[in-house]
């Protein structure tokens, strides 16, 4: 697909190219005196799935947060490249789809309103069909009009996926991907992973988990030890 660029207006097919690569070098993070993890090195290319495992408190969530550009690491560097150009932490967030237990969406809005709000922030206008498609993809079809406060925890998790996938990001970061999900939900996650792998131009997924079943989904694995 050709991307036309006319001045500052870019009409881009949202699933077009975006070859992404992630590189971590000597990454370490400390909270005060407590070292969460140290000396993490990895290189991940498009089309791959990286799994981060480790005991509780070993810093999986922290690592994912750093990768998303939400937290600067105490030491080391994270380089996320999209189409060869390295992105700084703030710009990186636009290219990231993030799902985590501590991510919350607005309870006082409906599922549809949440998606429309976040879509608007990304410069997307969700038509009615697009909205229905987004909800159907995560198995929330017909529940878009309910307030998120009325959702079950599994439904909230599904909505988080819808949020993460709004802009079809090249980099998907999933912290405990199947938390609160039933069997259908787990199948949905597997579909998402497959779609990300098959993404034109290449998509990359990094999972943080301890579930053996989810660990199977990865091509490469990093194990974090509890820091001193």
């Amino acid at each position, binding site marked *: 697909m050709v991307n036309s660029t006319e001045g500052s207006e870019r009409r881009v097919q949202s699933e077009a190219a975006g070859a992404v690569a992630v590189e971590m070098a000597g990454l370490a993070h400390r909270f005060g005196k407590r070292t969460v993890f*140290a000396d993490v090195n990895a290189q991940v290319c498009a089309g791959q799935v990286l799994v981060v495992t480790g005991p509780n408190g070993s810093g999986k969530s922290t690592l994912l947060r750093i990768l998303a550009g939400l937290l600067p690491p105490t030491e080391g560097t994270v380089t996320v490249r999209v189409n060869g150009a390295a992105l700084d932490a703030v710009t990186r967030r636009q290219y990231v789809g993030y799902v985590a237990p501590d991510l919350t969406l607005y309870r006082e809005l409906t599922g549809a309103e949440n998606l429309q709000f976040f879509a608007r922030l990304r410069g997307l206008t969700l038509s009615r069909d697009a909205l229905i498609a987004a909800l159907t993809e995560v198995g929330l079809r017909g529940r878009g009009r309910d307030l998120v406060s009325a959702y079950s925890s599994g439904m909230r998790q599904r909505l988080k996926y819808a949020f993460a996938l709004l802009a079809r990001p090249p980099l998907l970061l999933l912290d405990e991907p199947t938390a609160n999900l039933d069997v259908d939900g787990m199948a949905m996650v597997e579909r998402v992973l497959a779609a990300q792998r098959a993404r034109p131009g290449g998509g990359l997924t990094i999972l943080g988990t301890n579930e053996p079943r989810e660990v199977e989904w990865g*091509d490469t*694995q*990093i194990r974090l030890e509890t820091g*001193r």
Partner: protein
Amino acid sequence: MATTQTRPPAPKRPADAEPSEPAPTPGLQGAWWKWAVGLLMCYVIYGAFAVGGTVNFAGSGNSGRIVFFHVPVAILSYVCYAVAACYAIGTLRRRDLRADAKSAIAMELGVLFCVLATITGSLFAGVMWNSFWNWDPREISIVIMLLLYASYLVLRGAVSEQPETRARLSAVYVLVALIPATFLIWVVPRLPWLQSLHPPDTLVRPQNTSASYKAVLYPSFLAFTLLFVWLFQLRYRVWQLVQRRN
């Protein structure tokens, strides 16, 4: 499936090499200058009581002698804030906990000087106009300054368990509160809505300052400023030792 193991955490590096003396102020190292400050302060105290002719602040007579202490301390209480603001900018730009410590120390000393200024000012008012507190603009200004310092310390106390967050929030607060501080120093005492008992700008008018008077006042400024630097260095050294112990 290839597995990439992380290496075990690297051995803990020794703390960043901190000099045993705090960040050196040019020329102010060692003990010699502290002796000099001590002597200077003795001179100031003696001069304050011995300077010939009375300091004629609105006919204040001998009670005006407190001015030699009150004015430097009051000005210093505002200067402390400026120092804290500079270090706050440094904290935000470099994400440096040392700059944050310096900022906090400057604010703590600001509380000290603010309290001294309030007390000396109140004493002067009590002797001069027979009432220790008048809600006059400069008095209001110094009290709100004290409130500002106190709020800063309250904010720091609320986030005390996360040093990095505390550094950022304190620095931002210092910079945001710079606006009210500036207004307090320059605008509030001159608001037409507030009447003033405080002698306006008496120091600046040359007819009020004889040579002997200047001979005590200017050294007093110097002495108190150096005292501030000394206290600052002491507090910073304590902080460094605490850091090293942890």
